[in-house]
């Protein structure tokens, strides 16, 4: 019986020699190969991973593992720089780009002995909420192929087959979420700017943690919005997220926006008494378009806390309704700025057009970026024009301050944690999702997750239950700045109560030899 505590379930197995790092790595790679239809990975670094696994094995044999993550297969979203392994951001602009350096978070994982299996798929440059708009094609939600979904789904017509019924993984870190959800790795890095880690985590039934802004280094994370981006952590249980957080958090001199304070990794206590807890339910998160299913689940969750003795109160975050437009202005302006470096001169795609430097730049950028990226650049530049700056950028900054103040007021009034839905509904079929454009989708899907990025607060998706369609639904907890320990402790308690079911995937069953078995098995609701 795996112990609970601050170790990844499988690391116990590694330590006790029940499985070796190379075996583990090979099994994950084999499972990966048999689930390529998910399109979760852009690059698989099989050979390098096996070498890392061999090194790890030597260390275990000597009785000197580097830490809890030694030998653990992980995956990294393809917008993090990885030395020697292609980093594409799912864009033609960076196809074939081999970075000369590792992002700080990647380096930290490697220094702990983690085995890097590969780079995961995403929306191009992390712009999107479905992981459908990258040049390598969309990511498929593993739950599309689960027994739970298949038995509930009713094909609309006879000619329809499984192929066209698959649902999106959410985005933009869909590849990482799918990789963790389908057991091809034990943890994955994502990024979160408006919900990009929590959204796919909810759709794929995994834990998705957005840490406090400034806690984890962004050095090496190719930026979308510098003032909101954070590296995100995707795992199958809350304890694992805490372990990964412990190995990543802390000041990085290479990133001037990380806080100087010392960070002490923590073990999550097993909370039994929630009577001292005050849970806030923000009424504005009952957003238009929120499915009745999720509304009911949210309500059940609130009752769960109430019945366990916690104080559950309704609170108000009055400026929530302005967050979409505010985000739109601040995001596009930063995108316009951050993308200015992609001109084909030093790296990346360079057009053959060479009549002049300017024409080369223009052609390179037209060829290298998809419509979504180009659209945001144009909008962003518009808002930054001298005549527009005051009315758009400055105004949006002020609204952002108001949104952040909403949270401060609520947390200042004695509320410890906020409980909200993560998404408006369970994952929609791909065919339906693409009927609306990226901008519309993003605007709809980000509403519940964005505000936490505006305010820089930590937030986590905890898989809660299966929907009527047999797909995962998660709920979100939002905590105070730098209070990840409290946030994760409450999330862990909740996770224990709901006992979210394990995905029943053919391929996983075939490759599993007891190693992939997760502790939780019973289901909630």
């Amino acid at each position: 019986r795996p112990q609970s505590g601050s170790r990844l379930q499988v690391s116990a197995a590694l330590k006790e020699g029940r499985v070796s790092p190379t075996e583990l790595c090979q099994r994950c790679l084999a499972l990966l190969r048999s689930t390529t239809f998910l399109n979760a990975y852009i690059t698989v670094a099989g050979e390098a991973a096996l070498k890392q696994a061999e090194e790890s094995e030597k260390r275990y044999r000597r009785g000197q593992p580097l830490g809890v993550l030694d030998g653990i297969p992980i995956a990294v979203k393809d917008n993090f720089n990885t030395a020697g392994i292609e980093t594409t951001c799912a864009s033609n602009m960076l196809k074939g780009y081999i970075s000369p350096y590792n992002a700080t978070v990647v380096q930290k994982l490697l220094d702990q002995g983690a085995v890097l299996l590969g780079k995961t798929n995403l929306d191009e440059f992390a712009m999107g909420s479905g992981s459908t708009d990258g040049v390598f094609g969309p990511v498929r939600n593993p739950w599309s192929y689960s027994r739970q979904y298949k038995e509930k789904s009713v094909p609309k017509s006879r000619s329809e087959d499984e192929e066209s019924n698959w649902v999106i993984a959410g985005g933009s870190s869909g590849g990482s979420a799918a990789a963790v959800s389908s057991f091809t790795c034990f943890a994955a890095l994502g990024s979160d700017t408006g919900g990009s880690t929590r959204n796919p985590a909810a759709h794929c039934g995994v834990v998705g943690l957005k840490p406090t802004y400034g806690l984890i280094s962004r050095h090496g994370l190719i930026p979308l919005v510098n003032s909101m981006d954070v590296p995100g952590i995707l795992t199958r249980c809350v304890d694992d997220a805490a372990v990964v957080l412990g190995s990543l958090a802390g000041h990085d001199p290479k990133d001037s926006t990380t806080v100087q304070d010392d960070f002490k990794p923590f073990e999550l206590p097993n909370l039994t008494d929630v009577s001292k807890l005050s849970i806030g339910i923000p009424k504005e998160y009952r957003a238009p378009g929120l499915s009745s299913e999720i509304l009911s689940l949210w309500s059940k969750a609130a009752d769960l806390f109430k019945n366990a003795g916690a104080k559950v109160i309704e609170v108000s975050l009055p400026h929530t309704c302005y967050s979409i437009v505010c985000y739109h202005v601040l995001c596009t302006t930063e995108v316009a700025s951050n993308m200015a470096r992609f001109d084909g001169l030093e790296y990346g795609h360079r057009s053959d057009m060479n009549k002049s430097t300017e024409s080369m730049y223009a052609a390179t950028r037209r060829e290298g970026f998809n419509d979504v990226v180009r659209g945001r650049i144009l909008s962003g530049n518009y808002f930054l024009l001298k005549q527009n700056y005051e009315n758009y950028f400055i105004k949006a900054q002020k609204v952002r301050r108001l949104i952040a103040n909403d949270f401060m007021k609520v947390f200042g009034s004695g509320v410890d944690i906020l409980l909200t839905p993560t998404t408006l509904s369970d994952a929609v079929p791909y065919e339906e999702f693409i009927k609306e454009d990226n901008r519309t989708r993003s605007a709809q899907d980000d509403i519940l997750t964005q505000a936490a990025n505006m305010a820089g607060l930590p937030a986590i998706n905890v898989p809660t239950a299966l929907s009527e369609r047999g797909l995962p639904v998660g709920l979100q907890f939002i905590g105070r700045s730098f209070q990840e320990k409290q946030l994760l402790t409450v999330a862990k308690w909740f996770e224990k109560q709901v006992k979210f079911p394990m995905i029943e995937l053919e391929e996983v069953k075939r490759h599993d030899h007891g190693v992939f078995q997760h502790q939780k098995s019973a289901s909630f609701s």
Partner: protein
Amino acid sequence: LAPWVPVVGLEIHAQISSNSKLFSGSQVQFAAPPNSLVSFFDASLPGTLPVLNRRCVEAAVMTGLALNCRINKKSLFDRKHYFYADLPAGYQITQQRVPIAVNGSLSYSLCIDNKMSQMVTKTVRIKQIQLEQDSGKSLHDDTRSQTLVDLNRAGVGLMEVVMEPDMCCGEEAAAAVRELQLILQTLGSSQAVMAEGQLRVDANVSVHHPGEPYGVRTEVKNINSIRFLAKAVDYEIQRQIEELENGGTILNETRAFDSKLGCTVPMRDKEGKQDYRFMPEPNLPPLILYDAKSLPANINHQQVVNIDWIHERLPDLPSVKRAKLVERYGILPEHSFTLLNEDGLTEFFENVVKQTQMKPKKVIGWILNDLLSYLKQHSLRVKESPVSSCLLADLLNLLEKKEISSTAAKQVFAELWKGERKTPLEIVKEKKLEVIQDQKELELICQAVIDGQENEVIVMVLG
């Protein structure tokens, strides 16, 4: 014809003297092999972030204090966007909203009517000093239709010093820049050598009639020396006056100074006004500076810059040095200007004074009239002088002791200049330039002369 009032303002970029660049650790070095001093950040590799160089902040604070500015305890960084091959990120990190120092002044002196005897002091207001990144260099190879880009300079720290339009002619602009150059070199915050691109000056020039509003101004670039600065400004003033008197108008444009032709020409590259789409730099928190009062108790000293600490350690500025020289040695103010104006000359002068009994008031004549003119004639710097301060002191001692006449001394000096390593005494003996002190010997010589010139003597005696 109504008189014209020319108005001249300056934007000066001084490269900060530091080991590494403003936001990255790559080295700062002149004339290194192309693209050999480029970090990932300088090349704008995606995912890299700026980290502020403490030394650059200190250099800017020093300079601000020396220019009587108010140092802003909180200043901000911004992005200024435009596309150009030598700007890898597509934006420059600068300080547009709140720069590090504001509202200062610079005093400089001019000679009236080209005579060194009358000097007048003028002041120009310093609008601000801001920290910003230098760009790389691009060279256009027209034969091969290509542009060569060298990023060694990309990201080097600059202080942009903005001088208000308080100047009225080329001479004033030149004198102000010269004084700024001396200040920067004294502080060590910039080596300010124009020939190496460490000091770049752009001039803003306009003319108007007294009592009327300021005229349209042009910006003059590509000025490579202080001498050319004066020429460019004066040419542009003249050009504008002529244009306006002929009924024309002045365009708000950028012009380049052509040193060969001695005139300004419109620059080809400028295509109308650019909107730089300024935006705060999100990866750099506000720059907070402290003074003795505001310094928090338990702070890591590596992480803070203390304005008062820097103030206490400022060296004597040129104006103070000059005053001290005048007071200490009794030389004229205009002498002190010349001394400071030549690199190493003050030191040379003081070394000579130390080693000789001759009064400094007399020594200065030798330094400025003899040494300096020889140096200029041979285009040598003080460092390269074949006559050392030691040798000159020896020579002056001989003169002071009246062992040689001043005419003889000049001869000896000319000999010394040949650099044949002879001492003044050796030269005197060789050329028999000694003053004869012995009365008897002198009488013998005089007698010999008189004896040899009997007829002339009779004529003289008879009146």
